[in-house]
């Protein structure tokens, strides 16, 4: 019989344990340092931030290079790649215009067949069109060149058309660039919660995604982006910042890749361009798919993108490869094991189904000898519920508990999609995209 705690470690994760602990040390360190700093933080009003609401707090931490001027919002180019985003583009531009000057907002419409281009212009952004549909990465690359963002700005924010940037985003994220080694800052993802008109399935999916975001960002990424052990596998492309000076070194649009953000992150580490910063207070809100079809499509795309990216980057003797190996090993192992859960459950609970099928009695005897409902309960269901309770408590959202029973089913789906995508990682793709169905959001609450 497999002991339940082995199942639990296999299913919940060595990575959460490891990076969660590193994250805890990071937290303690920053608390100690903050307590040690007697000097109160000064508010600085740099050039473009003279208007109220555009102030950036400068961190007291000195850049190792010393002397370099802190990055402020005036130095940040916002770049939105949009493909048929008529429904959300104007809202997105308006929301980001509340945070940065209009001359900083850039939109590239990639092969849109709707009014995306016109609407973006009308909203006050600088807009260009690609000649043909080149895919998100291609569009970003083209826009960076045509807008000459590398020369004109110190930092570029890659923003998805459906993302709403929190008012605090820049105040939290930009000080991370005070450390000259930091070349990218990952935004903290939250899912749009209070969307009206979400079906029950839509709510479940949003809940599931939010749970994943919370777990991976607090238990993985926070630890992974500590300046001492810096190695994270993803700077998500939905709302993240890159120092423009590293962009020429990043191959943004290699042929065949379905998504660009894994690849850009891998490039940063494997080419030793610098470190990645992340703070949970640099929040941006994204729309997750609201129906199962879009969810499956998006999850499959992400999974495929990850496997394709892994294929592109040979391992090297560095911390990043070590982190990645541990992470992927666990991802694969837990995917296989999670796929087995329903099989075992059926074999154990509905043995009558197997009567008369040749060879089944041996299988049942094997399953029953190695697994019991008890060890499944303690090893798989309980850890899942404990994680859910933890997230619900942390986020103070009881809704997680309401949907708690269904997360495991979605994890089975995720595992299927992930392994399916693995097989497809050897076939090429054009990188062309189709966004999940968007809906207009009331501006009330993010």
């Amino acid at each position: 019989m497999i002991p339940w705690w082995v199942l639990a470690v296999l299913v919940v994760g060595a990575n959460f344990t490891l990076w969660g602990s590193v994250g805890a040390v990071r937290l303690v360190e920053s608390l100690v340092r903050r307590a040690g700093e007697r000097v109160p933080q000064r508010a600085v009003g740099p050039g473009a931030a003279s208007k109220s609401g555009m102030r950036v707090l400068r961190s007291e931490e000195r850049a190792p290079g010393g002397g370099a001027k802190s990055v402020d919002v005036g130095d940040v180019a916002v770049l939105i790649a949009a493909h048929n985003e008529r429904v959300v583009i104007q809202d997105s531009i308006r929301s980001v215009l509340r945070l940065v000057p209009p001359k900083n907002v850039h939109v590239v419409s990639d092969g849109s067949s709707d009014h995306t281009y016109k609407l973006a212009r009308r909203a006050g952004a600088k807009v260009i069109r690609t000649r043909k549909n080149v895919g998100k990465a291609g569009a970003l690359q083209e826009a960076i060149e045509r807008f000459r963002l590398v020369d004109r700005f110190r930092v570029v924010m890659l923003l998805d058309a459906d993302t709403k940037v929190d008012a605090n985003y820049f105040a939290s994220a930009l000080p991370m660039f005070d450390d000259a080694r930091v070349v990218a800052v990952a935004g903290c993802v939250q899912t749009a919660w209070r969307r009206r008109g979400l079906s029950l399935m839509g709510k479940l999916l949003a809940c599931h995604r939010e749970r994943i975001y919370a777990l991976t960002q607090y238990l993985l990424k926070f630890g992974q982006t500590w300046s001492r052990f810096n190695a994270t596998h993803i700077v998500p492309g939905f709302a993240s910042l890159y120092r423009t000076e590293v962009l020429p070194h990043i191959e943004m649009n290699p042929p065949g890749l379905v998504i660009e953000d894994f690849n850009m992150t891998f490039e940063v580490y494997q080419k030793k361009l610098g470190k990645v910063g992340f703070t949970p207070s640099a929040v941006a809100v994204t729309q997750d798919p609201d129906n199962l079809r879009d969810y499956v499509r998006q999850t499959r795309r992400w999974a495929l993108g990850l496997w394709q990216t892994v294929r592109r980057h040979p391992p090297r003797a560095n911390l990043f490869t070590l982190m990645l190996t541990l992470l992927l090993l666990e991802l694969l192992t837990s995917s296989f094991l999670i796929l087995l859960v329903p099989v075992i459950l059926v074999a154990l609970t509905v043995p009558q189904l197997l009567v008369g099928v040749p060879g089944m009695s041996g299988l049942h005897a094997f399953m029953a000898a190695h697994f019991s409902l008890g060890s499944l309960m303690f090893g798989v269901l309980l850890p899942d519920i404990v994680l859910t309770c933890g997230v619900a408590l942390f986020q103070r959202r009881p809704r997680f508990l309401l949907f708690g029973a269904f997360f495991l089913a979605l994890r089975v789906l995720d595992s299927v999609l992930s392994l399916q995508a693995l097989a497809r990682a050897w076939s090429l793709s054009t990188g062309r995209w189709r966004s999940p169905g968007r809906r207009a959001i009331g501006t009330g609450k993010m």
Partner: protein
Amino acid sequence: MVKKARTAEREAVPRRAARWPRKRRHLLGSAYLLLLLGCALLLVALSLTPAPAPTSQRQTLVVGALPFWNIGGGTETLVTHRESVNGVSPWMYGIGPNGGITTQYSPEDSDKVDRNLSRLRDAGLPVMPTLANITEGRWAYEPVARMLHDPELMRRHVAGIVSLVQREGYNGIDIDYEDLRARDRDAFTGFITLLAERLHAVDKKLSVALFAKTTDAGYDERNVAQDYAAIGRVADQVRLMGYDYHWSTSEPGAVAPVGWVRDVLDYAKTRIPPDKIVLGVPLYGYDWVDGHGESVTWLEAFRLATEHGAKVRYDRDRQAPWFRYTDEKGREHEVWFENAASSRAKFEAVRAAGIRGVYLWMYGHEDVGMWPALRDTLPVG
């Protein structure tokens, strides 16, 4: 001015062109991903396969327990399936009213017994006969109890056993003293400890047959009398009688439901080193009628079902076959027995638990399909 400074800054970052051509990079990346996939599959497979019982020195044990009434047929079977077994325990010694060791079979059968023992020895099977507290054909408490609580009698009994083992050239002895009382616990442990000491001194083995239980107190006084941990420390083998969960005077049901067997092994492993635990597997069943069960072999059960046109069903939870029939007098019978599938389930449980092996209680004609199942699950190599 500013622009120039930025350009300079940009060039300060060393440009790292791809060190390898794209094709080679892809190949290396693919190899890495495939390696990860292989490792993950290996991890999953390893976590699902039972921990290999420490068989390097301690080989899996499959013992045929041969009751004297089946010594002819049983010997034939064991010789036929020689490659699947590596030990035999003829159940044939008892205790006389005065406490001396006797044989359970009648004197006129001794030639037959000797002949079969020779066959077993010729086949290369180590012989470790069983001594049970049977007196004149019945379980007897008194002779053993007297011995347990009288140091002089105990010493003589131990000496008698050791000399029997040496005289007959057995590999050791298997002690099957049943139905002791709770107050006999320490004395029984003392007896086993002394016997183990004396046998080991002459390079012989000791096996002790114990009732299955899932807690120290067990179900009855007889369970209290058997201290798993203490006996497990001194004996070479502890044979757990994983049978008669339902018995002749209980309500009808499986003789050894597999869930119970697993519980027994789980508990036993907390008390006894796993490589000393040998599970007893029944190869018989009962035919219950009017509140009484008559023991039946697999063959008898099969015949009963055929004669009465009864449909044999298989209880998946308990892993045992059963059927009902009505006899000529109109009485309703219920039969639970053992077959290849039910035995396989127990062999799987043994493998999963990582214990030493099994002994087969060879009551009579077993399901021949049991042998391939045994070979598959518990090969003795």
